[in-house]
């Protein structure tokens, strides 16, 4: 073990990953590749979850509720002590942007793999960050620079409607509400404040003018402790529902080389308002005239970091670990080379034919795509019920190709290869999106789903007829072989009865 200090760093030996699901596995993969041990934590609902299987060690931290397990600071620090971990990686969500946790980790003598607590504090309050960034000469989305008073909603006519209510402690689209009519303001404020209180423990709201049409563009930053700061290009995250991203791509089809330089400069200025190292993302809205406005800076690894890794070849998680050890970024990161185009489609357990409503259930069948240029990050396990307490993200389908049309074609192919049984997912939406003319041209904005997605439309007549065939055949086949039930219980070999029944089913439809 190396014990040097300074630029050669102090080697981390064992990393506790304070998260679950696909992102925990992602971090553990980096640990394995770098020869570091990994420690998983799990709630009672996750005893046999995929992320537990991916780690070298695993410790229980509490009951299923996130507040008692993955948000339970004392239990997590206990697990770190018990396992002999010397560092903690938080993933995204949960405690990843909680400065109190970061300080507790460092107070316990552990290395924090992420931006410093002071940075999280300065940027975690989105409202304070807005003020600091405006002072640094970067345009912010027009609106108020003070908190809204829940008891006495102010006159917001000077901001103008429609407007956006946002949580000062916010992120991930929660505590966010679009308000079109001043009359809706009290109800929307109450709902947004409640959601913010539940998600972040702080119901403070602020207000921004609605910019529409707009594109949502974010810049990936990676910094070291020696003043090195790398700008790893942008990601276009404009395909959203409920202000949450469904698809991300890099480079953005809307960003010219000049705009890319300007976005990078703005992102550097935003990072310059704080003491920054590790990975973070600066988010901007891009209006129809090409103007860009600071939204927020997220001081953590992003869900969609993988597309940037595909086009740069840079392992962002590995660099977070090296930076935490005190190593400087090297020229391959400081002067990244970008190759080709990458797109990510997020597969969620939700019903896009019913307002993207989250659905509960158990996955009975799962087949991930693979082949050239495909990366799938997931933690799907057949037969395990999804827990409503956790994020409904099932998988991230990522594709990489030499240019955008090839990447779109590759994504279409990857979606067609993916199979999820047991519950509705948004795969059908993604399949629709890759054939959307605007998306195909790269000409789309954050209103795409609201404007164009035919929510609630029935399936195509051809698919309905095929579904009817499948259901009738399955019922007839099941009647003779499997006690009437399909996709439940252990498989039995196809018997002569099944073959006979299938032949009869074929013959039956021949008469139609």
């Amino acid at each position, binding site marked *: 073990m190396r014990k040097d200090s300074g630029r050669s760093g102090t080697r981390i030996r064992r990393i506790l990953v304070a998260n679950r699901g696909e992102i925990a596995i992602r971090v553990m993969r980096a640990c394995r590749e770098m020869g570091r041990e990994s420690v998983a934590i799990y709630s009672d609902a996750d005893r046999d979850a995929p992320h537990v299987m991916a780690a070298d060690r695993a410790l229980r931290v509490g009951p299923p509720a996130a507040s008692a397990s993955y948000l339970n600071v004392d239990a997590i620090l206990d697990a770190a002590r018990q396992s002999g971990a010397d560092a903690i990686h938080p993933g995204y969500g949960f405690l990843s942007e909680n400065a109190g946790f970061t300080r507790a980790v460092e107070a316990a003598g552990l290395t924090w793999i992420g931006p410093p607590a002071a940075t999280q504090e300065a940027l975690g309050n989105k409202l304070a960050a807005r003020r600091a960034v405006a002072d640094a000469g970067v345009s912010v989305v027009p609106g108020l620079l003070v908190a809204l008073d829940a008891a006495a909603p102010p006159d917001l006519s000077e901001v103008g409607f429609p407007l956006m209510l946002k949580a000062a402690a916010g992120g991930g689209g929660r505590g966010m509400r679009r308000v079109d009519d001043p009359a809706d303001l009290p*109800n929307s404020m109450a709902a947004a404040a409640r959601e913010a209180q539940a998600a972040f423990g702080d119901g403070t709201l602020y207000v921004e003018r609605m910019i529409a049409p707009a594109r949502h563009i974010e810049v990936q930053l990676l910094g070291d402790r020696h003043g090195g700061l790398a700008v790893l290009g942008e990601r276009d995250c404009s395909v959203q529902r409920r202000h949450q991203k469904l698809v991300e791509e890099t480079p953005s089809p809307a960003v010219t080389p000049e705009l890319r330089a300007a976005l990078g400069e703005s992102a550097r200025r935003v990072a310059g308002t704080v003491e920054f190292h590790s990975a973070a993302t600066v988010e901007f809205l891009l209006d129809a005239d090409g103007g860009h406005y600071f939204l927020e800076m997220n001081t953590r690894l992003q869900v969609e970091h993988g597309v940037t890794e595909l086009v740069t070849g840079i392992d962002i998680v590995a660099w977070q670990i090296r930076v935490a050890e005190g190593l400087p970024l090297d020229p391959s990161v400081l002067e990244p080379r970008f190759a080709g185009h990458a797109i990510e489609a997020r597969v969620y357990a939700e019903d896009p034919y019913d307002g993207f409503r*989250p659905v509960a259930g158990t996955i*009975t069948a799962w087949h991930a795509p693979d082949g050239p240029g495909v990366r799938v990050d997931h933690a799907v396990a057949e037969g395990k019920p999804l827990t409503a307490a956790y994020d409904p993200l099932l998988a991230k389908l990522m594709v990489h190709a030499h240019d955008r049309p090839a990447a779109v074609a590759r994504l279409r192919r990857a979606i067609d290869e993916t199979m999820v049984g047991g519950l509705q997912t948004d795969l059908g939406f*993604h*399949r629709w999106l890759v054939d959307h003319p605007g998306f195909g041209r790269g000409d789309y904005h954050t209103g795409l789903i609201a404007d164009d997605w035919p929510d609630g439309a029935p399936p195509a007549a051809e698919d309905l007829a095929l579904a009817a065939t499948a259901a009738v055949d399955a019922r007839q086949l099941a009647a003779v072989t499997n006690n009437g039930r399909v996709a439940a219980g252990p498989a039995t070999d196809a018997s002569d009865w099944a073959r006979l029944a299938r032949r009869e089913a074929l013959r039956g439809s021949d008469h139609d």
Partner: protein
Amino acid sequence: MTDYEVRFGGTEVQPAAGWALEWVDRGRGIGRLTNGQFSRPVIVEGAGSEWFITLAGRRIPVSVQTWRERVLAEARGAAADSGAPVDIRATLPGLVVAINVADGDEVEEGASLLTIEAMKMQNEVRAPRAGRITAVDVSVGQPVATGVLLLRIE
């Protein structure tokens, strides 16, 4: 000839002529539909008269009923469709975080009744028709499972 009738929502659907289901992995419900030439992957779940068929990423609920099952279902439907009270049930598991109505309130169609938090989202439950609230069966802070009675409108 099959004596099954297939419905999607309320509409009868004719099976695709010449196509048949072949199992690839019956235990997991994975199969392919084929007409002897073309092939479409499909996931089949269900039992009895209720089936879910996933095609091209869309999970399509269809009922497959014999004549006898159809007659019984229609009789049940007729009883429920006579201006009778409407039970509002949870469509997803979650936590009741707000209740905006009380016993005896008159509500308009579309009025916000209560909010259920699930998967970290606030899901508003709205009135499917106008009427009077005659029972509120849940309280704020209560976890509810899918299908649990929340309240009733008469």
